[in-house]
């Protein structure tokens, strides 16, 4: 028994940087659950949109609504959705890295960055993620992938050059915490699925617009009057569907980015490095930066360590219901509280 006492004395268990009664295991479970909720919600949404389109086509085509028509449309919608989700799960990470313009690097390209990431992988007991550089003067970083075995971290060249070793460690620990918490899976799927829907709506809208014009010109030549306004009807319907879909998507993005997630990743970074000052100093540098990140868009903004759009003052203070990131000043304040 004396042996056990001695051990507990020589191994100082530091208090956890996470909120009380919370471990990263809870966060992993929460992210798994939320990913399923996301998929279920998006599936229902797809089915509803498919049914709405079916209704429009049937009313315009035959004037009769049949359940077979709905069934075929919903089935087609769901199959498409399953394909899209599968793609998002397996190829989402690579796609997001491509969109951000990130380039993979080897150890020889930047030994220090490589070392820092490898060290943190050891601290977390996880495999080493792939390391990417984003050629941009903006100061930002993100992590993505479907699980820790298929994860990547990316950092802008601007941020890489500005940070000391300790600050770099803080930033990378924050990204490693996103990987460890499995935030990467949920945020990746939100970003790619939302991106896909935006793209699909865009294509659909253009197709509807063009076919409407085409039919219109042919109609005027042949002099037929029946079917007039069909294109307009479909456009109005799509507008209606979009009006329903848009706020739902916004809600989903918010769920994924819940600012809580950033605070928790900061806490997770401290759990790994046991050195809050590194990340706090890095965030101070990030908050002073004004360069926008051109490679980011609304679907990917929530992935980054700091909001890629806001200017310095907004980043520091803005705390609205719709912001994807907590104000940096508040994050620094919480990190400093851990130092005491």
């Amino acid at each position, binding site marked *: 028994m004396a042996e056990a006492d001695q051990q507990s004395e020589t*191994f100082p268990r530091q208090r956890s940087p996470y909120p009380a009664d919370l471990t990263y295991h809870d966060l992993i479970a929460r992210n798994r659950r939320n990913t399923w909720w996301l998929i279920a919600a998006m599936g229902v949404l797809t089915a509803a949109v498919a049914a709405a389109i079916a209704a429009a086509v049937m009313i315009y085509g035959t004037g009769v609504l049949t359940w077979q028509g709905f069934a075929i449309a919903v089935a087609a919608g769901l199959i498409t959705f399953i394909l899209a989700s599968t793609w998002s799960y397996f190829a989402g990470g690579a796609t997001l890295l491509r969109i951000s313009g990130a380039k993979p690097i080897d150890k020889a390209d930047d030994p220090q960055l490589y070392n820092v990431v490898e060290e943190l992988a050891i*601290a977390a007991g996880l495999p080493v993620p792939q390391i990417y550089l984003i050629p941009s003067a903006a100061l930002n970083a993100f992590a993505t992938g479907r699980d820790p075995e298929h994860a990547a971290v990316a950092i802008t060249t601007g941020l890489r050059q500005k940070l000391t070793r300790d600050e770099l460690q803080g930033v990378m620990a924050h990204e490693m915490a996103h990987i460890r918490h499995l935030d990467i899976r949920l945020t990746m799927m939100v970003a790619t699925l939302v991106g896909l829907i935006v793209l699909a709506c865009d294509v659909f809208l253009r197709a509807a617009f063009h076919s409407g014009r085409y039919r219109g010109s042919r109609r005027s030549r042949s002099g037929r009057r029946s079917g007039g306004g069909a294109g307009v009807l479909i456009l109005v319907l799509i507008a209606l569907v979009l009006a329903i879909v848009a706020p739902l998507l916004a809600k989903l993005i918010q769920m994924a980015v819940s600012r809580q997630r950033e605070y928790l990743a900061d806490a997770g970074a401290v759990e790994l490095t046991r050195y809050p000052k590194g990340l706090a100093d890095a965030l101070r540098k990030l908050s002073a930066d004004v360069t926008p990140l051109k490679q980011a868009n609304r679907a990917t903004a929530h992935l980054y360590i700091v909001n890629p759009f806001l200017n310095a003052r907004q980043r520091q203070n803005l705390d609205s219901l719709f912001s994807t990131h907590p104000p940096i000043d508040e994050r620094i304040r919480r990190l400093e509280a851990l130092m005491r």
Partner: protein
Amino acid sequence: MGLIELILIVALVGIVILAIVVGLWLIAAYNGLVRRRVQTENAWSQIDVQLKRRYDLIPNLVETVKGYAAHERQTLEGVIKARQQAIDASGIREQAQAENLLTGALRQLFALSERYPDLKANQNFMQLQEELVSTENRIGFARQHYNDTVSRYNIALETFPTLLIAGLFRFQKADFFEVELEQERQAPKVQF
């Protein structure tokens, strides 16, 4: 069928269900303990990998320093001796002690390099320095991860009801890789 028979059947079914539940719990708890034990072994092997990495870097470092500060024999020999002791150490406790000595010897070596501007500017030395800083971090983090894993495993061994299984199958507590005081914890942060 009488009332007594009915009660007997219900009781029997109840006992069988209870036995199945307890059996399943036993299997899950046993597997859980094995998983945690394997995790501690994996975490230890990770420390081992990093310690070897440091042994491999040291001869190169000593050679480089010799080129600029050959007369600092005492410090250089201290590092070489500490390295050999660490390689020869066996058992987690002895290993921890030897590694702490080696860390101290290396710190002396880097403190000494402050007095030799040519050495500090040497490309090879700078690379070795980054690699050694990184290795120090790796050892620290691997140790931290190992200790966290050990602590989770030992807590499982000592808490009810997994305590019963641990006793039944003679699971042994794992040793911590001891961390020294505050200045030791700061070792990875030293700016050479």
